[in-house]
């Protein structure tokens, strides 16, 4: 193997030594302002077939062991948090619908969501409050974090399994919109459908 150039070596060493995933900007700052994009791409290619890989998760980079070696590395003590079924469902709803309010989560699940369920997800660092919905009552709205993407091995929210099919099938739209579309009742929910469309557009930009 030929010796990589100094910047590549520096980026490699920095990411190996880092205790947290780092954005390209953070790496660049650490290395005195160098442009590290090309070095990251080169490292990613170099490591792609090795036992250790360089991955990007939510615009942050880190080295991790190759997924196909999981069976060799799994440790006796379980380090991954066990999630209740309710928490898992709420996490999926937040991820696929974000930003989303608790009432919206509950309307999908058809059951009240205990405050503790969202707390567990926030404590795990996977969900956070991102603001308030501008409707009466100004409910708090939730979204996923970069740590969520890191933990589940997602480069971005577009990587969420099946999200494109779900969106195409309208399964991420509120029931009201789907109902209006299915019943084809003119004028009943045009405005709603429109506003919902705007909302999911916004969500995509996130």
């Amino acid at each position, binding site marked *: 193997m030929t010796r990589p150039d100094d910047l590549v070596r520096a980026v490699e060493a*920095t990411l190996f030594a880092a205790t947290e995933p780092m954005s390209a900007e953070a790496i660049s700052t650490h290395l005195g302002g160098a442009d590290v994009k090309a070095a990251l791409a080169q490292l990613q290619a170099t490591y792609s077939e090795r036992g250790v890989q360089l991955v990007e998760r939510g615009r942050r980079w880190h080295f991790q062991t190759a*997924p196909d070696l*999981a069976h060799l590395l799994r440790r006796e003590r379980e380090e991954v948090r066990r*999630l209740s*079924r309710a928490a898992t469902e709420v*996490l999926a709803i937040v991820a*696929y619908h974000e930003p989303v309010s608790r009432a919206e989560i509950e309307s*999908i699940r*058809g059951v009240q969501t205990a405050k503790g369920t969202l707390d567990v997800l926030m404590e795990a660092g996977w969900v956070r409050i991102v603001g308030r919905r501008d409707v009466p009552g100004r409910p708090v709205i939730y979204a996923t974090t970069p740590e969520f993407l890191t933990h589940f*091995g997602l480069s971005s929210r577009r990587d969420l399994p099946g999200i494109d099919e779900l969106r195409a099938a309208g399964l991420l739209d509120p029931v009201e919109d789907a109902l209006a579309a299915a019943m084809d009742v003119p004028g009943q929910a045009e405005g709603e459908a429109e506003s919902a469309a705007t909302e999911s557009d916004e969500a995509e930009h996130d």
Partner: protein
Amino acid sequence: MSELDDSPALTLFEDEWQGVATAPQDDAALYLELDGWEGPLDLLLDLARRQKVDLRRISILELVDQYLTYIERAEALRLELAADYLVMAAWLAYLKSALLLPRDEQADPSPEELALRLQLRLQRLAAMRDAAARLLARDRLGRDTFLRGAPEGLRVDRKNNWQCDWFALVQAYGQVKARTAPVVHMVRDRMVMTLDSALSRVSSMLGVNLDWMELRDFLPPHADPRLKRSALASSFVAALELARLGKAELQQEQTFGPLLLRGIKA
């Protein structure tokens, strides 16, 4: 979509879940699993999946019957049912009758709409349940992939480079000294024209001239501007005093205009 709806993901990764209904196939087990359902919609979804058809083609009537049968048998077994299961049962019974009875034109929303709404809700819940399972099945950090076990860590030590120049230093000392020096007020002697001397000067000048004269012309010629101001003030007061005594009259055409003064013959 069919991929999502048909996938038996619910049973694949349930080791992640606590207290999960394990979608039991035989009825006896089913009735004991009430605590496993996350509410009536969850129970309905599981019953719907037993129909083994696409959720979009599900028979709502059949589903309603299954649900109502389930609730009846649970009651027969004296299982304690949460109120929301019973509310759902009542609503579904109403829905069933509305769907079966001759159509009431006034009904709004129509029973078909209510059935469709239920179907849409079940589809959405099913979609999220599958999504959750697929999410949990991903290569998860700390379970399937691992970070470096003993990273050296990056440390950034901030070092301050303090700046201060010679002038700032010396000026600061000067200001300390100035601020803390004992304060002494010096009142300097000023040249003034007293009211008495102004009175005598103005009245004597009025005696020799009976025409209107500007107040400034009564002032003694003097180079010092501070004495001039004092003389003007004193002469003005002297003019007022003479007018009060009826020895002079004052006239001013406009505000801040020249102040004219002339004597009155006694």
